[in-house]
Structure formats: C-alpha cells, structure tokens
C-alpha cells in the first residue's frame, strides 16, 4: 500500500466522529453548498438556514453531510456547531486554523479537512448574497485561501478525468 503517516487524532475528533451533531439535509435550507468531490476523497455539503433579524443576517440552523475521513466528518460537524446563531459577518471570520484548533489541533496532513469545511461555508455565504442580490462591504471580492484551495483540488480531479487536448501541430 501507500506510505503511511501516523495520525494521532485528538480525543475531540474521535468524540465528534462517534456522535456528530447537526447531521443530514435541512428541509428549509436557504442555501446548500458543497466543496470537494467523491473523486477527491473529501466532500462536505453544508445546509444553511439564514434569517434576517434586525437587519443582521444570522445563521439560524446549519447541518452537514460529509464524505471523507474521520477528521473530515468531525470538522464539518463542529463547524455547524460553531456557526449556529452567528452573524454571517462573524461566521466569515472563521479560518481553517481556528477550526483546526477547535478540533484539538489537526495533524498538518489533515489541514485540508478544515480547509474544505471552511471553503464550503464561505461558498454558502457567497451563494446567499448572490441569491438576495446584495454584496456587503465586509465580503471580499477575491477568493480566500480556503476557497482557492478547494477550487484547485476540485480542478485537479476534473482535469485528471477530462481529456487533455493534444498540443497543436499534431493533426
């Protein structure tokens, strides 16, 4: 098999893995966004119910589905806990590092799990604002690290399976 790397998960990861919170699709979700793909071996789908209270966009409910390793499942679950009740502006501030720390510190090779979860969240937030046709000042026009990385990983898989056009001069 492939070369292995030791993965000393923190007990937190195991705990959440055993008992994930906010699991499954959300009937009345405002937006549904995913990141990753089965080919990547890593995929998270986030369901967000967003309401506007006193002019603030708040995440009322968040649920998830996850295809991936134990860290991936734990990252998605704990993220949904962290963002419940938060304003979108505050939820946006959650970085992959903060998420990793919440999980007791992921082994570096598993950083991609928290990156994926945060990437899905950011996609969800952008999708919401696109849906309602607004663009708040705090929402950056440029993609964040997490979003870029997720995009790259998905792209890589796409390219692998799609045909690669032959270079000119061959026909």
């Amino acid at each position, binding site marked *: *098999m*492939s*070369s*292995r*790397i030791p*993965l*000393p*998960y*923190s*007990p937190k990861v*195991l*705990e959440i*893995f*055993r008992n*994930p919170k906010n*699991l*499954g699709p959300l009937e009345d979700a405002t937006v549904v966004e*995913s990141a*990753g*793909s*089965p*080919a*990547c*071996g*890593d*995929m*998270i*789908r986030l369901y967000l119910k967003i309401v506007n209270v006193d002019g603030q966009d708040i995440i009322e409910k968040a649920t*998830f*589905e*996850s*295809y*991936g*390793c*134990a*860290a*991936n*499942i734990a990252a998605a679950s704990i993220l949904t806990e962290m963002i419940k009740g938060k304003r979108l502006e505050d939820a946006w501030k959650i970085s992959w590092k903060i998420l990793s720390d919440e999980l007791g510190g992921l082994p570096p*090779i*598993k950083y*991609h799990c928290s990156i994926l979860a945060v990437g899905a969240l950011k996609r969800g937030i952008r999708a919401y604002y696109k849906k309602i046709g607004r663009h708040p000042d705090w929402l950056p026009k440029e993609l964040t690290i997490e979003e870029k990385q997720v995009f790259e990983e998905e792209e890589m*898989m796409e390219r*692998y399976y799609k045909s690669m056009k032959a270079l000119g001069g061959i026909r």
Partner: protein
Amino acid sequence: MSRKVKELLESHGIPQKEVYFDLENSGFVPDEVVEAMIPYFNKKGFGHPSITHRVGWEALEVVYEAKELVAKTLGIRNPENIVFTHSGTEANNLAILGFLLKNRDKGRGKKVVVSAIEHLSIIFPARFASELFGFKVVLVPVDREGFVDPEILKYYVDKDTILVSIQMVNHEIGTIQRIKDIIDIVKSTNPDAVFHTDAADAYSWIPIDVEKLDIDMLTISGHKIHGPRGVGALYVREDVELESPLKGQLSVEKLWPGVENVPLIAGFKKAVEIMFSNFDYRVNYVKNLRDKLMKGILDRVPEVLVNGPMGDMRVANNVNLSFLRVEGEALTVELSLHGIYVSSGSACSSRVLEPSHVLLAIGRKHEEAHGSILFKLSHYHREEDIDYTLDTVPKAVERLRKISAWR
C-alpha cells in the same frame, strides 16, 4: 507527542470483542514463536554469530539452521545463498539496488522492468537507481484483476533489459501471478535478464520451488508469516552478483552489514516450521474463512466492489473490498471502535494523499479506491471472528453512508 496518543487511546477504549485483520501491515506474534525467541535474548546464543567463542557459535548455529529450513521450503539447493535482512523492504532494496549498483557501469540504455502493482519497496529503489545511474524503469500494466499478461510483458523485455521484478502474489489485492509463464517469457526473450520476485505475500501460501521456476532472486518477510517484525530474507542465485547498498561492518551476511538479529531469526525459523507443518490444511482453512467473509459482506452490504480476482487465483488470506459512498480511513476508525482492525487504500490514509497505486492500476476510479478496505486472514482466526465481523461491518458502513455527502 505521546500524551496526545495516550489521550486518544483512553478516549477510544478497548472494545469488548477484538478481531485483528491488519496482517498486511503488522500482526501479533504467536506464543510459540515468542517462546522460541526469548532464550536468545538472555539465556543462550546471545553472542555475535561471527565471534569465535561458544556463545557466538551458538548464535551462528541458529542462523544456519534458519537458512537450512528456509532453503528446504523453497527448493533452494545451497542455504548459503540466503541473506537475512531486517525486513522484506530491505530484502527488496538489496535485490534491486544491489543488482543495479553492481551493474552501474551499464547504466544508460539498460532497462529495469517491474509490474505496475509492485510494492513500493520495489518501485522506489528502482526509480532511485535509475536517477543515479541512468537505468530506465518501465512499468508493465496489469489487467482489471491485477494479472500481468505474459504476452504484453514480452514486448517490454528486450536485449537491453537487465532486471525484471514481478511479485508472485500482490500484497493488496491478492492476485496470484502466473509466475511460471511470466518467467518463461522473460527468459526466452532475454536469457541474460535477471528475474527477481517479491514473494513476501506468497511464501507459505502457495508452493514455491526456485529451481523449477528458474528464479534468480526472491524476497520473503518475517511478519507476513506470523514471525516477528525485524527479519526478512533474500535468496540470491549462485551466479547473480550484487553490491550491497548498505556499507559497514560485515558479519555472517556478506551482503548486509550489521549484526544479525539472532532472536528474531530464531522466531522466524519457528514461524516457518509452524506455517509449513500443515500447509494444505491451513491454506484451505483460511480460504474457507476468506470466502465466508467475502460472500457474507457482499450479501449483506450493497454497493461493494471486489478488488482483485475471486477464487483460486486469489491468495487464500486476502479480502479487499471497496465500499462505495464511504471513505476508507473513516471506516477503519469506525471499525476500530468496534474492535475490528483493518487498513485502507484510501488517499486520506496515505502520506501523499493519493489512493493506492495498485487500485488505480487495476482501473478503480479514485472514489472507488478511496472506499477500499483490506482484511488479511490467518489460521488464528475463528468462525466466530468472521461472524462478528459480518454482524458489525454492515452497521458500520450504514452509519457512514447516512453521514455521507456522496449520494
């Protein structure tokens, strides 16, 4: 560092029932083997086998006995042609690097042919030597069950081929290569090409005779036969010359420096005795358990793919299945929580975040490879272990499928 692991273990707990299937990567050593080793740590033969005193000669005796026994089980005429190393990986490195080092002046233009599903301890040394000395390493493709087609192999072997290495049994998917046909094609196409085979997963599972098969070099591994980790061996035919990639003080072994690990070799010898004492009965026993496990899971769990062939061309102890819609590493953790210990060819369990090259080479799509689980069986497993596993696996897979984003 260790505190984190301690906390993890505490959190995990010890499940009431445990079944260890991860014999691919390591395994428990049976009591008889442990007992065979212990005296050589502190009671006798703890000397250096190349020093001329009684305690050294006692150690030497064990090394020679072990070689004689191994020679008998492999049809090797001269036991002195066996080199002990500390693992199958080292034996493979000695074979590949050792041969290419010896032939380094031939470097540019010369070819090394290996199968696409070899163990990394074959592929990486071959690549390494090619970078250093200019050899060309070519990979022979396999079919969807992992078989090397001798007719395709024929086109890879030519006058520039100096080394061919093709495993007898694949460590991951259990494919038993048609090794006689393969060697015949290689030798008839280029009689000067040296043929090495990694027999780590074949030894004690299929009959092997190096003379009859015309094998030039062969690797075996201790932990694969319920021996201790820390011992492996390479058979090198009389007329094949190697230069050891390792340098240092030599002892019994001219080709591998460092003191031989005599207690482990004593254990290895015992393991060989046990495995060969009732060969056919044991292999059949395990094969039946394998079939029960494989069929049982296929009957109870939907959307499962078998990796590797079924039936007699699959080694008796191997079950490798891809569970769709779940990821392998998550499944190994889930099963571990229920006391079932396996490993996975998924990307998330590998250092390079890529799924197993063996699974990709047999045409498994990435997502199929990610869901793979490897069970390795032995004659120490009982029916009830299989029954427990058949009870547990469906529930484990079901729970993860409920969580899964892949619908």
